[in-house]
């Protein structure tokens, strides 16, 4: 095994950045779950709100993607 402490730190950091995925998962699940519970109460109004749901998913997901970006930067750019 070769390598130095900086590389070790980068790899550990990249692994730790993956915990951000959990946050994105909670966020997206929350958005869709609440949409579904509302849609089942009033199915006639649900169709018009799917676009809003996707916008919400996109915003929740963006922050999870940022953690992926941090992992990539640590792996390939540092």
């Amino acid at each position, binding site marked *: 095994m070769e390598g130095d402490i900086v590389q070790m730190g980068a790899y550990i950091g990249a692994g730790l950045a993956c915990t951000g995925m959990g946050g994105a998962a909670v966020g997206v699940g929350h958005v869709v779950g609440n949409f579904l519970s509302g849609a089942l109460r009033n199915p006639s109004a649900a169709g*018009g709100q799917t*676009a809003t749901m*996707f*916008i919400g*998913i*996109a915003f929740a*997901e*963006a922050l999870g*993607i*940022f953690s*992926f*970006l941090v992992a990539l930067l640590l792996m390939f750019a540092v």
Partner: protein
Amino acid sequence: MKEGKTLADTKDAAETGLVFHPMDQFQVKPLFGDGPIGVFTVTNVTLWMALTVLVIVLLMVVGARGRNIVPTRMQSIAELAYGFVYKMVEDVTGKDGLVYFPYIMTLFMFIVVANFLGLLPMAFTTTSHIAVTAVMAMAVFLAVTILGFVKNGLGFLSVFWISSAPLVLRPILALIEVISYFVRPVSHSIRLAGNMMAGHAVIKVFAAFAAVTLIAPASILAITAMYALETLVSFIQAYVFAILTCVYLRDALHPHH
């Protein structure tokens, strides 16, 4: 990285246990020869972007040429795509946003076709590169910002001043809004590129496990499932990119909350 070397070579395939590196598929290589990549070098990105444009032209121009009352299969796909994007722009942006429908249609068709072509085995996913998506996102950002100032003058700045919030909170909210406004092109581009890159890398990781006899059946099942998911994600990401463009456009046309 050195020219002509893949990641699998540099990382020592025997040590990592992978025959190929999952990120190898994203390498930009010249199509002819092994020379350095300049501005005008024809690379695999060029090839797959050209194929994307070709498929769109075949679908939307040649496929819809007949204008039959009872549409053929190609024509009904083209009509479905057109109607889908048209309704989305109308719903999100309003009637006055329909002037910008051709731009959003172009973005949507390019992204969705590039994503689907990238799912073909041995294909190159052009949208998995931040360089490609960043150009599209910056174009949207600049266009929307300029449009906002042209349409509303300095009144466009009221997009940062949320008049429905309590007066004490407004300066803090304005700061947050300014930050989130300038993060838009970053999140807009990284979302598409990150989703595409991550999905394709996952497929390749499972493909590497298929070489181990013991877990090969499970791995092949996982690849099939990931492919189904990726097909869905390809479409949803194109949809999300287009709908966020519509949302930004709505902010530029009607900045008052």
